[in-house]
């Protein structure tokens, strides 16, 4: 029992894993804000209600702030921490198959692709949604089709995102959902960090 005590709190906490501050409150608020807006527009309000437009605009502003934060924000939030690079993602998959358990403090290279995919999809949805309300594009078929297609793609992406997060939690043992709630990633011991 005393062995466990060895060298005190520093070592003890190192033994059970250390928590590293990753997601700042702005990233977290925007993440859950976007979730809320998507849920409101997908499941709660009618398509032609003014609330649908307001939720859409709110979502657009949230994504806009996030994109600006990707340039001037905290380190893990910056684009530089998770560049959209398919080769890095491929490399990451290869390493994963060799059961390399390196934990990425920001998004992992595969997750990064999903992040950019979801942002793009949200922007397409918001833009086409806005266009549908303008005189010039009102009732134009391809705009409506694009809005619906992008929405379908968003649903697929969200499903993939949730599966990906679940898979990564199972594989790495880092509680990612909690990380998006209170901001700290708890890294298990003996896990290399990048």
């Amino acid at each position, binding site marked *: 029992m*005393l*062995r466990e*005590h*060895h*060298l*005190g*709190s*520093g*070592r003890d*906490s*190192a033994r059970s894993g*250390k928590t*590293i*501050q990753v997601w*700042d*409150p*702005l990233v*977290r*608020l*925007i993440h859950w*804000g976007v979730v809320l807006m998507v849920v409101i527009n997908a499941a709660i309000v009618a398509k032609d209600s003014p609330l649908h437009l307001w939720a859409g*605009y*709110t979502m*657009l*502003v*949230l994504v*806009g*702030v996030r994109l*600006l*934060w990707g340039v*001037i*924000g*905290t*380190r893990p939030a910056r684009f530089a921490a998770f560049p959209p690079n398919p080769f890095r993602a491929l490399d990451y998959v290869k390493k994963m198959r060799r059961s390399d358990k390196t934990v990425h403090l920001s998004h992992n290279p595969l997750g990064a692709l999903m992040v950019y995919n979801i942002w793009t999809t949200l922007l397409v949805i918001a833009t086409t949604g806005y266009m549908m309300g303008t005189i010039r594009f009102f009732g134009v078929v391809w705009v409506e089709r694009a809005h619906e297609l992008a929405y379908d793609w968003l649903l697929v992406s969200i499903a993939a995102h949730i599966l990906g997060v679940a898979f990564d939690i199972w594989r790495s043992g880092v509680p990612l959902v909690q990380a998006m709630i209170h901001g700290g990633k708890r890294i298990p011991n003996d896990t290399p960090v990048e």
Partner: protein
Amino acid sequence: MKNGLQLSRNDRRRAATLAVIILVQALCAAFFFSDVVSDFKSDKYLSEVHFYMEAIATLVLIAGVVFLMIELRKIMARVEQLDRGLRGARGEMAEIIDAFFEEWDLTPSEKDVGLLILKGFDNEAISQLRGTAAGTVRAQSTRIYSKAGVESRAQLFSVFLDELLAGEGRQDGADLKA
């Protein structure tokens, strides 16, 4: 260390507040921005002071958002630094203790007792924790003091504090032996 944690907690609260204000202000800025743009397009309001006031207010709102974002980044950098500093100090202290214990050739049970002494337990508590007689602990601590070349608990503490406060960066076992 409590102080450090307290500081970081205050910063965290400030950061959360800032994040909320940033988002609300960004939403307002977007609203006024679209209003100004549509006023501008409609051409009717260009001669009114109202329009220019609104345009300036919008610009200030946007500038405010950017300014608050930079503030938030600073706060988060401080939180991160504080967290890392605390972790570092803990790790460094453990390394120093390890190095000295090795240097003094303490037996494993003496190391345990030494650690408990440093953690502030008295002999009675240590004997209870280790399930040994109080006499044994007293004998062990005497041996630790003599191996360390100190005469009391207080002097034992000061050995480690001196090392930390010496501040010549990190010292490892090699340096200590030299």
